[in-house]
């Protein structure tokens, strides 16, 4: 069940081609600013629950730095082994210069 939109960070804190992780409502959320778009996904890998925040982002994909699983930032789909399960994706909006995520 999705909750309410919650402020994540100011837009200015997330310049192009950067990302940031924070705990919202007890859930690790990762927001990526890439290719001119903002994406909010789970901050942990579905494979072995490792943090994704240091993963490389290219072409709307994030790579888990620990074992190399890749996920589509738009859909959360797992794209290669060792992950087979998707990561959660969250609704995101910008209000008054704030990035808000519904978790």
């Amino acid at each position, binding site marked *: 069940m999705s909750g309410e939109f919650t402020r994540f960070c100011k837009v200015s804190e997330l310049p192009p081609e950067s990302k940031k992780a924070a705990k919202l409502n007890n859930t690790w959320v990762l927001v990526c600013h890439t290719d001119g778009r903002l994406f909010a996904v789970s901050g942990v890998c579905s494979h072995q629950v490792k943090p994704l925040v240091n993963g490389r982002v290219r072409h709307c994909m994030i790579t888990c730095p620990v074992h190399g699983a890749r996920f589509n930032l738009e859909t959360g789909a797992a794209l*290669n082994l060792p992950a087979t399960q998707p990561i959660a994706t969250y609704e995101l909006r910008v209000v008054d210069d704030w990035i808000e995520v519904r978790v």
Partner: protein
Amino acid sequence: MNKPIGTEAQNLARGAARYPGAPSTQEIIASDRVKAPGWVCSESYEFLGDEDISTDRYTEAAYAEREFERLWTRTWQFACREEHIPEVGDYHVYDIGRHSFIVTRVAANEVRAYYNACLHRGTKLRASGTEGNTTEFKCSFHGWSWNLDGSQKELLCPWDFPHVDIATNKLPQVRVELLGGFVFINMDPDAPTLADYIGPAAMAHIREWKLEDRYIYCHVAKRLPANWKLSIAAFMEAYHVLDTHPQVSVTNADANSQYDVYGEHVNRFISPLGVLSPHHYGKYTEQDIMDQFTLGDSSALGDATRTLPEGGTARQAMADMFRGMFEKATNTDLGGVSDAELLDCFSYTLFPNIFLFPGISLPMVYRFRPDPRDHRWTLYEVLFLRPVPLDGKRPYPAEPVRLTDEQSFTEAEGMDPGFGAILDQDTDNLILQQEGIEASAKRGLTLGNYQEIRIRHFERAVDRYVGTKG
């Protein structure tokens, strides 16, 4: 003009005959307004015999096994581009058969390639076909991990492994060399250097192209329905253009293309475009050639009107038009690029399995690998390269578009549909060729002395590595 080769050709030395009455490739290029560099204006043909090529190499699984043992383990192979791994910690997994390697940048100017397997119980440290960035290579099974430099970082419960010395338990490496933005690997510690393997003449050509200043703007992968060597050979000659690609033959000097061999591992053809095929002399006008011109990277031309100046040639008009529009569309400077480099098909093969096309309108890299599950199939990739934009911001290399066996190349996003149609025609031939070779009463392939010299040169290298049966 399409007259059969007569007795005068038969009196020449073997391999010396050329299409009668047609200008040579060098004569065509010499007429261009923007002159071609030295690497274009040279010839290096060599007659290498006229015996049939045995066909067991295409049909027998045992032959493919010998190739894995003796050829793939001893040759330099393109594993990835440097642009795939620009930052320290970036890695790219390259597979050939059952072999798998993690190619990684361990320092700004150092790339290494490790066997992609944990030294504990063998699990791959990274899945095949993947890339990313990391600070360590950690096995997902029991957590043994290695630093970027290959030294072991962690071993869970070391008390249980007194027989393992962490200080020396490093990831085994294979050799790596960088050339033209390509990362090459070789499993053989005794192999020649990449420069010696390629040879001085071809090395000089490759260094002039500066392919390190290009980026991959489109990457398409698809299986081809034939043995990898048949797939490669299908792209080594322009002799097939008339029948296989009739839509191209009007604008291609197919029968008077130039073929060259360099040492043991490199060969090439130069196939001029924007000129009428000798097969069609007298049947088409210069405007027809202009109208039918197909480019590998035609996106820059859009729907522009193809007007032929009074008294002009289609070749020169296309060169002038393409030069201006391409520069504008891609924010690049082609001032130092000759007309031939802009238009023509320069096809180089680096043994065993890559083609480099250093031209601008046909700017491809092909890679062919045997499908390890079936020697009758090839894993084929085509990469299109473009100059890095003048503002210096290098785009990320394109992700591969993976087509299914049933899909047409024309469905590949980012690739010119006209080019895709050509690849489809080649694919259709390959199905019939693989099956025909298996069905044939004749156990050898017969090759033309000149137009198919690249195939003979290639198969000679295969023979040298794989050897005879046993």
